[in-house]
């Protein structure tokens, strides 16, 4: 094809004017690189937050006693409310059709000792279903079962951080720790989960059977939270509603406000996705602006190029080039340099993103689709902004063009 034969020649000519060519695509290179970098960083951040939400459990709905407020970006349970009871958890599990299972829980910070070592950690009393609902696994040892729970046995599953802090590399299974002077046998160590949505270490914790915690440690009859697992993701909104109605009825609230707060993992995920979507929109508009500037760079340099190459244009016309041959040539050149700029930009952006995660500043997830879109976009941008210079070139009269200096 005529254009393809020509493109090789164009490439030689463009390559001979390295600086001019580079300058013309600088805007595109920087724009594309910025898009790839920011999208990769955004994806990294999103992935991390979504990961944290997922570590909470699967299809999880959390009921907390009292009102939970956001203070300085973190959730805080306000004043103690004594109305939430273990029987509420039972009732939710039994009576709500959209609920697969439910586990009651209560926690307090308490001193924990082993040998000479002593730390303060969060002691969580929890039904045995809690492990499954909250995706807590015990690669070493095993979680407590319903028997141990009902018998209020003094057994404990250590969080990863607690096990490390108290025992170092030693194996704690079968050993006895003291929680507020009460001896507990370590029967398992949970797999590490990292920080939660609030930035709290989920591994700095000790799990004990709910009944044991209520009777022997905290001496209370109420609980703080119910972890509810919906049958599936679709049922989670329904499960939330059923649990709310049931609790209002059981607590005889009539027209009083809720004495509990329900958090839905699906809603949390949706909010997070919503946020990253609006973030992406913001990024795209910034990117579009910078690429627009890049396009104007191409326009300017192509106009200069057409002016400087008038004699070449005249010559091509003299040896038989049609007007549209000249137009197509300059269009193709604009697309070519914009495309080359796009490739350079993607490379630069990916390198920057890799460097960022390599240096540990930020988790970046390379977004190849964003790179591809940026590339295609810059080629079309080059062509669009190349139209006017190309038309100018095509409209030159051969005689005039040949006379140009």
């Amino acid at each position, binding site marked *: 094809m*005529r254009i393809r*034969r*020509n493109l090789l*020649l164009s490439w*030689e*000519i463009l390559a*001979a*004017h390295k600086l001019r060519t580079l300058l013309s695509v600088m805007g595109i290179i920087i724009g594309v690189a910025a898009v790839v970098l920011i999208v990769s960083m955004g994806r990294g951040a999103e992935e991390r937050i979504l990961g944290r939400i997922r570590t909470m459990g699967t299809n999880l709905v959390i009921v907390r006693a009292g009102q939970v407020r956001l203070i300085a970006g973190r959730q805080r349970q306000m004043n103690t409310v004594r109305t939430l009871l273990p029987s509420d958890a039972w009732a939710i599990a039994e009576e709500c059709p959209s609920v697969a299972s439910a586990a009651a829980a209560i926690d307090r910070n308490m001193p924990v000792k082993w040998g000479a070592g002593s730390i303060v950690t969060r002691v969580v009393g929890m039904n045995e279903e809690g492990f499954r609902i909250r995706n807590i696994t015990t690669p070493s040892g095993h979680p407590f079962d319903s028997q141990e729970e009902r018998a209020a046995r003094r057994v404990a599953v250590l969080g990863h951080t607690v096990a490390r802090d108290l025992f170092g590399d030693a194996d704690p299974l079968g050993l006895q720790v003291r929680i507020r002077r009460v001896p507990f046998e370590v029967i398992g160590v949970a797999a590490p989960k990292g920080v939660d949505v609030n930035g709290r270490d989920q591994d700095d914790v000790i799990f004990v059977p709910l009944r044991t915690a209520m009777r022997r440690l905290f001496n209370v009859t109420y609980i703080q939270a119910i972890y509810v697992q919906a049958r599936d993701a679709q049922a989670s909104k329904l499960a939330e509603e059923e649990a709310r109605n049931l609790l209002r009825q059981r607590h005889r609230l009539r027209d009083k406000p809720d004495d509990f707060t329900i958090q839905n993992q699906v809603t949390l995920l949706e909010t997070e996705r919503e946020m990253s979507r609006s973030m992406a929109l913001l990024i795209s508009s910034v990117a579009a602006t910078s690429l627009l500037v890049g396009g104007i760079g191409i326009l300017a340099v192509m106009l200069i190029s057409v002016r400087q190459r008038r*004699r*070449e244009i*005249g*010559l*091509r*016309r*003299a*040896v*038989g*080039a*049609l*007007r549209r*041959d000249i137009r197509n040539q300059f269009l193709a050149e604009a697309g070519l340099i914009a495309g080359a700029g796009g490739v350079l930009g993607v490379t630069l952006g990916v390198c920057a993103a890799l460097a960022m995660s390599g240096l540990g500043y930020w988790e970046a997830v390379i977004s190849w689709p964003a790179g591809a879109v940026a590339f295609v976009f810059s080629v079309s941008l080059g062509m669009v902004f190349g139209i006017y210079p190309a038309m100018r070139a095509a409209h030159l009269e*051969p*005689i005039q063009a*040949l006379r140009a200096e």
Partner: protein
Amino acid sequence: MIELEAVEKAYGSGSTEALVLKGISFRVEAGEYVAIMGASGTGKTTLLNILGCLDKPTGGHYRLEDTDVVSLDDDALSHLRNRKIGFVFQMFHLLERTKALKNVMLPLIYAEEYPDDAEERAKKALTSVGLADRIQYKPGELSGGQQQRVAIARALITDPAIVLADEPTGNLDRRSGLEVLAIFRRLQQEGRTIIVVTHDQAVAEHAGRILLLSDGAIAHDRPVAEPRDAEAELASLPKEDRR
């Protein structure tokens, strides 16, 4: 082959209109070698551009091989230039950053059908003008005479019936000029029509016929009784630096 009838060319319009060609008529038969002479500014280049279909007359008729050129549109003129005409410019007009071979191949890019042996043809054309060993050189690495010969090779690549040259020896020394004229003579012997614009009487006398242009009209049109022989003159030059 070429037939001009009362051709006029005016530049500008209205009060600034200047009539450069004022009714020019002549015929050139196929295989003729014609020189066009005249003082500077008399319209030689203007006339040659019209002959080469680069420009259209503003009056009169121009027939090229029975085609009425004046009535053709831009695309048709381009095709005509590509197929029938080889142009040699005074300023060479080579692509600076491109090797001789690619420069010579340029017209083929715009040919109706790109020949498979394009590169072979370009090499042959360059060899025929004595530049077989300069194929990979860029214009900046060639002497003026060599650049002009690359330009001639480019004009020949499409095997045109007509070769038009505007001051082809204007920028060359005597030896290089004679080499170019020797090539033109050979092209004529191959049966091509050659029209050369020059202000140099000695150059014009290599042609078989001289047209003298004066003030936009033809002052003389006379045959050359005994055209000069470039080969013989080259041979008689002292043998110092060749090329």
